[in-house]
């Protein structure tokens, strides 16, 4: 899971690093930069989702240990 977190962070950073001057950057600057706010919101949502997912799996493993 940590690897996956790292991967997603790298993905995001690579998007912004490689995005200089291209369509992606233009998009983020458009309409009053609302897309930046939306991206922040979605990053938070994604991280909360991943955290809950991780906890879910961990609890699942604990349940399996108890049931076996």
């Amino acid at each position, binding site marked *: 899971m940590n690897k996956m977190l790292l991967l997603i962070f790298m993905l995001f950073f690579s998007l912004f690093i490689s995005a200089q001057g291209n369509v992606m950057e233009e998009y983020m600057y458009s309409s009053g930069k609302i897309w930046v706010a*939306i991206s922040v*919101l*979605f990053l938070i949502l994604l991280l909360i989702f991943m955290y809950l997912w991780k*906890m*879910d799996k961990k609890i699942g493993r604990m*349940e399996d240990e*108890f049931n076996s």
Partner: protein
Amino acid sequence: MEKLIRQSWWKISGILVLAGALLFAMKTPLSPGILSIEKVEQAEQTLSFELIGYNSHFMTSNGLQVWIQNDAHSYCSKDLEIIDDSHLLIGIDLPEILPSNLFSVVLNDDIDGTLASLDGIFIKGNVEPSDGNGKCYEQVKLTEHGYFSMPYRTILYETIRNLNFHVPMWFAMIFLTLFSFVTAILYLVKSDPRYDDMTVAAIHVAMLFAICGLSTGALWARFTWGAFWTDDPQLNGAAISTLIYLAYFMLRRSVNDPDKRARLSAVYAIFAFIMFYVFLKVIPSMAEFSLHPDTTDNPSFKDYDIEGKLKIVFRTATAGWIILSFWIFSLRYRLLTIERKRLDHE
């Protein structure tokens, strides 16, 4: 139930529904509106002012017309200078004797539709009421702009988006407390400790959402009503019912015997839900004064939302938040179950 909370399809789809609704909640533009009327100047029989629009399209639209009107009279703009998409300079010729001092400013164009600033301008002069009927504008069909948008309301403005964040916190809390109410009854009927765990977990997560609801509500209130905390029956009711539920955990800690603790707290949870309903719904609806929409005689968001545009996004968002809250609840419940099994083991 036990099977459902271990499946992942509803968790993933819940998050996707929430993400979709929040994208719309953030991205949908506000409807155009008249932000303010400024620099009102009056000389002889001419009136000039600056009209500041919000999200309006004065530069690109066609057939722009501006007029001021009261009940029966209207006076159209003589000079109309478009500065940019949201600024207009307007000059209007007035008669010697006015039908009243207070006029609404109305604007119409083919992109923004008809916008009005009700009683937006005060004109000095001699007043003599008359019931003539002078419509100065022609061929104006009062319309709505054509694109998907959030309702434009003065005072609220962009904060109307909070409807998709603040309000679902309470919906999620109501959902979880209703759930705890049912499981508490089930515990008393069946004496199955699993129901006790469910009640505890549901109330615990409901408290998280109550704190989110209270704090976001305070922030929203500061910038629309002017204070973090106001004397609103629904606000105080929400605070009291949150405290009632916090006392549930104190009650549990003060009883050592597990069976007694479960039974006592189940009874308390049932009463707490009834009190919660009374404080959050019944008392605010009986109160004489409330700032919250949809209580007493206040207009609700439904009235702002003539074509039901808000409703679609709001309902989807609420569904997403409720699924998220249920997911957190299920994690909490499963942890309690494991803990109980471990205790039984020892």
